[in-house]
């Protein structure tokens, strides 16, 4: 039977089809997008909730670790500023796209390490007063973040609402710690207006602070701790216990479960999540200095166990404000 299609013809068509497939395969592919890296600096485990909140917020915005985002944790040997600076510099050298410091000291380390890489502080106080930003509305430079500063006045007022006759308040703090030192100038005029006497004592070392637990002035009516690492974080429970022993309330901004009467302050997990929105904007091209600093959301938590131990009945009208109430005999982990 005569061949209908010659072999040479088939070979020609075959070569052409292979060439066509080759052309299709060579069609320009979309350039592989670089996965952005986020460098996180946390001075102490106490700030982990802020990091968890940040990563959770980023996940809600569609960023999956390892897939389209990479988190690089700063390796700082201690919460001391020099170690934080070293960690920040290391992250800069690793080419991170955004730095997310958690705490004022971490923020200062990040600001010292770079003036080009965007910095989004997930947890900082007094960012304008301390010079991190020009203003809350327009921070400028390469900085923005969450400011949890203006919480102290409200906390003080709430204490006075519960104890309207209070006159002397004891304020132990970590001497030299930036946020603690920045809080005092805010509290002092307010206390004067309210007719309060503030008994302020700064401790340089943990040993001094330990010793201080036993030398709380007799006539103070409450302990009001400030945001720092030593007193306000590492030794918070000790001071809360000491307060209960003395029969006086101890209030702070976080961690009411350690024995505080109430905590009114930022929820670091929520603040971290707030910071994720800012990071998202930056990754989409916004300039950090153009993004307004957000005020952190504040949460009020009452510990009725402590209230019971102190023999105080918290009025319903005030309890209504609480975001969370630790019920009596309910132990939190």
């Amino acid at each position, binding site marked *: 039977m005569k061949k209908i299609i010659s072999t040479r013809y088939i070979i020609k068509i075959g070569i052409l089809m292979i060439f066509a497939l080759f052309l299709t395969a060579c069609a320009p592919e979309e350039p592989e997008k670089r996965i952005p890296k986020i460098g996180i600096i946390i001075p102490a485990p106490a700030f982990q909730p802020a990091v968890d909140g940040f990563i959770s917020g980023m996940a809600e915005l569609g960023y999956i670790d390892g897939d389209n985002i990479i988190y690089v944790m700063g390796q700082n040997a201690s919460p001391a500023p020099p170690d934080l600076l070293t960690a920040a510099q290391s992250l800069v050298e690793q080419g991170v796209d955004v730095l997310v410091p958690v705490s004022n000291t971490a923020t200062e380390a990040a600001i010292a390490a770079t003036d080009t890489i965007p910095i989004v502080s997930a947890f900082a106080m007094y960012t304008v007063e301390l010079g991190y930003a020009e203003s*809350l509305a327009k921070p400028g430079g390469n900085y923005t973040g969450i400011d949890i500063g203006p919480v102290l006045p409200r906390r003080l007022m709430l204490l006075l609402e519960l104890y309207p006759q209070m006159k002397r308040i004891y304020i132990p703090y970590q001497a030299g710690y930036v946020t603690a030192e920045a809080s005092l100038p805010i509290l002092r005029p307010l206390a004067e207006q*309210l007719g309060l006497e503030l008994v302020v004592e700064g401790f340089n070392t943990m040993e001094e602070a330990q010793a201080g637990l036993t030398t709380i002035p007799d006539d103070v009516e409450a302990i009001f701790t400030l945001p720092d690492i030593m007193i306000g974080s590492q030794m918070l429970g000790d001071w809360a216990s000491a307060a209960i022993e003395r029969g006086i309330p101890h209030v702070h901004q976080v961690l009411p479960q350690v024995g505080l009467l109430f905590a009114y302050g930022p929820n670091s997990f929520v603040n971290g999540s707030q910071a994720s929105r800012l990071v998202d*904007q930056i990754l989409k091209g916004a300039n950090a200095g153009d993004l*307004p600093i957000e005020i952190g959301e504040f949460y009020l938590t009452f510990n009725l166990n402590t209230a019971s131990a102190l023999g105080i009945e918290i009025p319903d009208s005030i309890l209504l404000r609480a975001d969370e109430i630790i019920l009596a005999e309910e132990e939190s982990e």
Partner: protein
Amino acid sequence: MYSKLRYRLTVLLIGLSVISMIAVVTVIASRTYNDLIDSSFDELTSAGLHGGDLISTSINERINELTLLGDVYNFSQLPLPEQTSLLNNMLVARNFYEQIAVLDLNGQERLRVARFDIVFEEDLFDYSSSDFLQTILTTRAVQISDIVVSQQTGEPLLRIGVPFFDLRRGTINAVIIADFRFRVVWDIMADLQSKITRPISVFLTDTTGNLIAHANPSVVLRNIVFEFPERHGETQGLDDMPAFTVVSELSIANTTFLIVAQETVNAALQPVFEMLRNSAIVTVVALIIVIAVVIAVVARIVEPIENLAGVAKSLGQGDFAVRAKVAGRDEIGDLGRVFNEMAEAIEYRDKVQIVKLEKQLVEIEEARNRAERADQVKSSFLASMSHELRTPLNAVINFTRFVIDGDVGPVTEQQIDLLTEVVGSAKHLLNLINDVLDMSKIESESLNLFVEDNIDLESLLKSSATTGQSLIADKPVNLQVAIEESLPLVRGDKQRLFQIFLNVVSNACKFTEEGEIVIRAHQEGEEIIVSVSDTGPGITPEDQEMVFEAFKQTSTGLRQGGGTGLGMPIARSLAEAHGGRLWLQSEYGKGAVFYIAIPIKADELVPV
């Protein structure tokens, strides 16, 4: 090349393919384009409406909860500490407000709670001159202000004013002014933005176009004034890129906002661009394949036709052995077979024709041979007969002269006259024989010229004139000779040249009864033109050609008698043998002129 079938067919098929592909892609792209635009506007409308719902819900909820203070708690009748506690609860628990103040009818703050500040009595404001308060008091309705910025936090605030009414009098007895944290709206927009899969941007403006809420707060801080689209649906986006835009009104209390949903044209039509890009790649690939296939297919179609054309050309050139390549059972294959059959038929017929021609050639050859032999026989006959005829004629002429001369005895006058007639007739017969012999040689192309150079035509012409004079001795005819001086000497056969001139002159003398005969000769280029003009009867046009036909005489000639009808044909043939010509010009009744052109040195004549 461009007229070639292969080229035209290839271009046509490829062109049709390209046009088809482009048409398909265009139709699909056009439909996709329109669908995408519709889809974009649908999404934009949906996003705008959804965003508007969320924002209006949020703000209306604030208005409701503030209104609830009056409706449920009879707020204005509560003692100040309770009012303070209630507002603090609201402030702290809800996180929606920057501060909440209670005003009396004079516009004086009675209390204010703030999110961050402790408000002392000396910090209370006086709103008495505030237009905002006056509007509330006048309208007795909830009012919303323009966006203001918090001095402390830099956050945008929307001031909501709610009047509280005395239950019994129905009059306003207090006004609550709450600064709603407008960043809640920003958060709503950010949340909405994050849930929209398309690259749609949703933002809020006031009626003058000032941007007041956007998922990206930094955009708001750029103080952008949005220019509402002049043409429905398309405008410049916030990033100055062309964008599809849907604007919806959002009315809350006394204030109207505009919620704008935008999608850049590029983003909306990205699928079309990608489709076009992919289509372009596929089209190019397909085109390459189509071109190759078309070339191959056209070759398969055209090659047999080209082969047939080549075969036809070869047939036309006489090559009947060539055959077309026959492949396939289609019409072209059939054509090839028919072509081959035709070629075979032509070849066969050609062969038959060749055989016939060969046979004819043989016959012709034989006929030729016979003719040659006949001609030879005729020439021999004529030569021998000429000799056999001349010899006795010469004897008759000579012997008759002897008798006329009295060489054989006395003769009477009467005898002399009769014998002179005999001599004349014999001479005439002798001339006739000579002419017939010459004509025979001419017709058989066996006339040989004795060619020599430097022949003096003048002397020949004069000699012929002398001879002619004798023919017109008894007629009133004047014979003149007018020959150009220094007439060049010519190459030719002297005897034959004299014969030409003698024939022409004799002809003129024969037919001219009165008048004159003039013999002229002059050089004209490389020829000598001899003319013999007479005043004879002239020759009609019908007779002019007959003059030069053998054995033919004109009617005048016939009437004159005494001719053989060979003189002029012989003269013309002899002139042409010399490379010249002989012709005449005549008008009947007005004489005739005979012209003879003789080349001075004809190349074809070779002197002996």
